[in-house]
Each structure stands twice: as C-alpha cells, then as structure tokens.
C-alpha cells in the first residue's frame, strides 16, 4: 500500500525571502519522513537542501522539525503524522543559523564543545576488552555474544535539544543541553581531581547550568534518551555538594 502525502516544506536561501513550498509525494506504507523528503527532492525539486547520512538514527545529521516538533525524520513514520489531507510541515531546527531550506549551520554547536575540551568521543565503541579494534577487523561472533557492547555516549550530536531549548532561543552564549550533558558524562568518567574541578568550574559558568530554566524540552525531544535536563540537575547537585562540602 502506498501513502499520498503533501509536504509543506520550508524554503530559504540567503538572498531570498523564506517561504513554504507544497510537494505531493507518494511513499510506501512503511516510509519514514526522510523517505518523503527524498521523494520531494527526487521528483519535484533537485535544489531542495536537506542533510542525511545513515538513515537509522546513528548520525544525527537529518534532524528537522515536523509539525513544529524536533525529530529525526529517518526514524519517524509518515503514518504517524497523517491527518486527513493536512500537509506535514517540515522546517529546519530552531536556534541555529540557516544555511538553506532544511539545512542549518551546526558549527557553533561543535565549536562550543571543542572550546571546552569536551569533544564527544566514544572510546568504548572502538575497543573490546580494552583492546583497540581495527575497523576492517571482523568480530568473532562468539565474542560478540559474550562481550556486551557498551554505549556510554549516547549523544549523536543531532542538535535537537538545542533547537527545543527555550533558553537557547534567548542566548546563543548558553552552553546548551548537549554540552552540559557531555560535562556530566565526563565527570562520571574521570577521577582526576584537577579535571573534575575544571569540569565543575565549566558547569558553574555564567552560561552553564544556572542558565537552564527547567523547561525539560531537551529531555522530551532527545531521540537517544540522553536526558540532558537530568544531567543538568545532577551537575547542579554536584556544584552544591562541592560548594557546601557535602555529598559527592
């Protein structure tokens, strides 16, 4: 069975006024929103700008807003949004500079993390039992069964939490939910007192955890269950504990 869908697509170029274009597409019953966007590009307008890579919520590249809410369109079924003849409104993430159509400039997001020394790495994903794994090295199926994969770093840097955060809308200087969640994860990973002190100092910055005003939209929207709001609250408790000399 096929689905006939109308997409109301945000269009923008730096030298043009923003507008919405309507595209009628036909997609398979099980199609996700990204499939519909790709159909619009393939059948109607090859100038449509959008980003994607993995198609399975691993890369975080394709994040957009569908009917006003941040999602990864690669894993959200079109069916979820079908409501009679109402179109699906597809828009870029908020709180980022627009590049064109659905593409936003995420450089600021990564620069913030780089500046704080908190570039997100996944050391557990390229090591098994503490030994590095070459990417061309096939894993012994027996070891895969007995050695569980750990993913301590669930954040895929999609930027959805920054788009959903109302504080980010008020201040571009705010570290943002993803970076603060990364701070909390780093604190969990290190026992080095100097590093811990530096991390807490960063969290306690004017643009750190105290700028969060508890809307919890980051946790609500995060497609990977990173729960940044909870991480921010945990950081606050750590700072309290450090300042008043109790707890952790």
């Amino acid at each position, binding site marked *: 069975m096929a689905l006939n869908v109308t997409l109301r697509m945000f269009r923008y170029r730096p030298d043009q*006024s*923003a*507008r*919405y274009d309507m595209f009628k597409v036909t997609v398979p019953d099980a199609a996700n929103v990204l499939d519909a966007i790709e159909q619009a590009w393939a059948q109607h307008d090859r100038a449509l700008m959008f980003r994607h890579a993995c198609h399975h919520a691993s890369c975080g590249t394709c994040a957009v*807003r569908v*009917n*006003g*809410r*941040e999602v990864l369109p690669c894993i959200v079924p079109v069916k979820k949004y079908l409501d009679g003849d109402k179109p699906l409104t597809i828009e870029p993430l*908020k*709180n980022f500079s*627009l590049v064109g159509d659905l593409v936003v400039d995420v450089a600021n997001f990564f620069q913030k993390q780089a500046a704080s020394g908190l570039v997100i790495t996944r050391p557990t994903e390229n090591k098994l039992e503490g030994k590095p794994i070459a990417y061309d090295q096939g894993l012994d199926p027996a070891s895969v069964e007995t050695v569980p994969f750990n993913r301590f770093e669930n954040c895929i840097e999609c930027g959805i939490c920054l788009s*959903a955060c*109302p504080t980010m*809308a*008020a201040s*571009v200087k705010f570290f943002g939910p993803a970076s603060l969640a990364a701070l909390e994860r780093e604190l969990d990973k290190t026992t080095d007192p100097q590093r811990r002190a530096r991390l807490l100092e960063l969290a306690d910055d004017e643009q750190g955890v105290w700028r969060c*005003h*508890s*809307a*919890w*939209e980051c946790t*609500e929207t995060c497609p990977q269950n990173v729960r940044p*709001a*909870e991480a921010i*609250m*945990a950081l*606050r*408790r750590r700072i*309290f504990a450090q300042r008043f000399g109790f707890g952790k």
Partner: protein
Amino acid sequence: MKLSLPENQKLRFLRWFDFRSWRVGMLAYILNRVTAIGLVVYLYLHLVVLSILTGGPTQWDPFVALARSPFFLALDVILLAGILIHGLNGVRVTLTGVGVGVGAQKTLFAALMLVGAVLLLAGAWKIFMG
C-alpha cells in the same frame, strides 16, 4: 507563500510562542515568564496607586470605592492567579534543581497547578464574598 520570520538573532525568543512545540515543560516556562512580567508591571502599578495617598482622603476614598467594584475585584483574582502560578512553578523549578522530583517534573507541575487552582478558587471566593 511568502513568510516573514524572526531571523534577527535578538528576536529568536519569539519562537517561544510557537504553540505547536508546547509541552508541559514549555508551558511551565512560558507561564513563568508571562506571570513574571505581569507581576513586575503590577508592582509598579501598585506604587503608582499608593502615590494617591499623598492626595489625602479626598483622593484616596474615591479610589477605594472604585477598587471594590467587580471589575477591580476580578483584576485581584487575576493577580492572585499570577502569584500562584509563578510561585508554585518556582517551587517546581527549585525542587527539581536540587534533585527532588527530577523524574516526575510533569506530575510535579500538574500537582502544584492543581494546588494553585484550589487556592485560586478559595481566594476568589474570599475576594468576592469575604
């Protein structure tokens, strides 16, 4: 379809009012800001009203009579609603901020707003009937 957007970085906060993205937390966030602005405006209005006292009983007594009119009493109820929403939402923010109810912020908000609604009804009764 042409579209006018708040592309100006300083106006990005206008996106707060995109109701399509509102969930419980966002609603609480917006309510806190709207009530905060309302309470600040009220504070200044209150000071202006108090300045009538300098005019003595001839100016103050007519104002008191006006303040007892149903319209002004309704404004008192709105003021009480603002105080309750802002104060109780502040309790939620404070509790979750120190680690209490972190996993239940939506329930916490709903429960506190329920308490607020009961207090508002009682307050409105007192204002109009007391």
